[in-house]
């Protein structure tokens, strides 16, 4: 089969180091039997990635994540198999399996037991892939027991729109530890497929906010497994699309045990001929009694040609839980715009004020005020671009 051979070719072309043999063979086994996901595949119904693979991709090695030095955080590149690859997703989903087959070394971030990190860790991945170039990067983030960390992960650069970056980040939030992980994705015309695979243990808190500002195609998977009791998670996203941009957010919150809370808000503004996808699954297993699960996805379309595909999914197998989900897609409220104009704001000012307020429910989840302020500015800039 055509598609299978492309996947195999990609893997065969890789100069795999001796390390990661164990996890690679499993992933390669999976790939040998799978194809590049097409529109026939439920999880890829609205996101066509065939274009990228059709023209052929040229695998290159890349070590393009930089980081600041922060007291209490160990950061290093590693090929230690014992550390990397303990989450389960990387052998069961095509892009994650591709990543596991192809990455050369992992950036390992570690906060040792009992360490409260004061300063924020900032990871910068500047992507400058040229035509047809493809690379896979891997990150492992471990916050050990009773420790805490705040981390920003920025994707930026001006990669070619026929290139592809594949990233897989594994995150371990240990017992009674706390992690805030904020993503900013602005990759010009580039294409990004990224998976964040999170495992949380008892009494921990995990917050992640993802702000997507530009990119030809962004597929963002976030999977969170709540493996111990008394975990609180916040999973938020905000996306702005214009032109022919396509951003696809797939999330999974897996409630495996009782007494956990998950909150999820994804919001987006779509203009031009852009396409958005939100697919949010919340799974409440039979044992996960007393779960509080909340999910919402709200979208504002600024043009007649923009499309939003929103699919909230809630599957509950326990009988004593409190869960809700909702999805709305609509236009800006004309009455509200007129009300603001009647008080002296011009049309753009009124629109910007309303849309900034719309974003604020997500942005307020970011504790760093400086980051929030810079994002608000970028949102204003993108609104100006959307206007014309």
């Amino acid at each position: 089969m055509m598609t299978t051979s492309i996947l195999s070719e990609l893997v065969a072309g890789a100069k795999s180091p001796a390390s990661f043999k164990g996890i690679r063979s499993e992933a390669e086994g999976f790939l040998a039997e799978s194809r590049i996901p097409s529109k026939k595949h439920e999880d890829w119904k609205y996101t066509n990635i065939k274009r990228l693979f059709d023209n052929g991709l040229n695998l290159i090695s890349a070590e393009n994540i930089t980081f600041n030095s922060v007291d209490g955080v160990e950061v290093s590149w590693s090929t230690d198999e014992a550390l990397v690859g303990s989450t389960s997703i990387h052998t069961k989903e095509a892009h994650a399996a591709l990543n596991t087959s192809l990455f050369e070394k992992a950036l390992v971030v570690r906060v040792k037991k009992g360490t409260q990190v004061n300063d924020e860790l900032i990871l910068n991945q500047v992507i400058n892939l040229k035509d047809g170039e493809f690379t896979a990067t891997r990150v492992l983030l471990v916050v050990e027991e009773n420790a805490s960390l705040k981390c920003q992960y920025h994707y930026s650069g001006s990669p070619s729109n026929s290139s592809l970056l594949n990233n897989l980040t594994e995150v371990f939030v240990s017992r009674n530890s706390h992690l805030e992980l904020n993503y900013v994705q602005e990759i010009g015309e580039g294409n990004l497929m990224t998976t964040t695979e999170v495992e949380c243990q008892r009494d921990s808190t995990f917050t992640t906010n993802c702000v997507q500002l530009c990119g030809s195609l962004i597929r963002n998977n976030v999977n969170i497994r709540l493996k111990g009791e008394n975990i609180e998670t916040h999973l938020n996203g905000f996306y702005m699309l214009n032109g022919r941009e396509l951003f696809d957010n797939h999330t999974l919150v897996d409630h495996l045990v009782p007494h956990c809370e998950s909150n999820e808000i994804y919001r987006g503004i779509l203009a031009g001929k852009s396409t958005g996808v939100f697919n949010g699954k919340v799974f409440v297993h039979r044992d996960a009694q007393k779960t509080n699960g909340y999910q919402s996805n709200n979208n504002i379309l600024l043009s007649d040609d923009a499309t939003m595909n929103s699919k909230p999914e809630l599957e509950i197998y326990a009988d004593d839980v409190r869960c809700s989900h909702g999805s709305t897609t609509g236009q800006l409220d004309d009455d509200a715009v007129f009300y603001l104009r009647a008080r002296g704001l011009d049309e753009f000012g009124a629109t910007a004020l309303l849309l900034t307020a719309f974003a604020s429910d997500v942005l307020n989840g970011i504790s760093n005020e400086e980051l929030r302020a810079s994002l608000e500015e970028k949102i204003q800039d993108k609104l100006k671009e959307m206007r014309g």
Partner: protein
Amino acid sequence: MSLLTIKNLSARVQEKDILKGFNLTVNPGEVHAIMGPNGSGKSTLASVLAGNESYEVTGGEVDFDGKNLFDMAPEVRAREGLFLAFQYPVEIPGVSNVNFMKAAVAEIRKHRGLEQLVAKDFLAYMKEKKELVELDGKLAGRSVNEGFSGGEKKRNEIFQMAMLDPKLGILDETDSGLDIDALRIVANGVNKLRSKDNAFVVITHYQRLLDHIVPDFVHVLYDGKIVRSGTKELALELEERGYDWIKEELAEA
């Protein structure tokens, strides 16, 4: 010179003619009350003057302080000093009253060539205006009108009017649904804002409000035009006799 001159104004909404040759002249220092039965065109008049694009102006002229009102976008009308207190103020989640007023006052001061207020002066200015309508301090920090009671929303409209210091305030059924205490507070707020330089057009269903905001002129709007004008005694007569006698007189004529 008059502040507002409306000549032969016609307007429609959704293919239905509502205003049919409306005339009114308002001078600085005056308060005009416009009364009329449901569907006579009262709210259409308010919306057209404020620039609501759902209403189509099909004829006539409006001069506001020497300028053609219809040449101006809604925000320019506001900056020039026209203020509409909405019949149904809009709830705006996520935008605080304070930030809203900061943005609005900044635009209006810029337009009028006034220096911008520094944060401290702005807060002092806001405090003074809040007291004018006995607006609870907490409401100012909350999202615009979100979860406000009917009375709180109307007080918030008068508060905004005080903040923006218009030449002409149009009150669109600001009294509807208010209990007597809220009515008194709203009316007192308006009375304190009255001066020889500004003017008000008070659109109302009920004479009750006019006990508190005493008008210089009362007009009866019926079927899209003013069919009778008088002084405050006309309002009392309407309260007493309803609108039917006017309709009957018109039918006979």
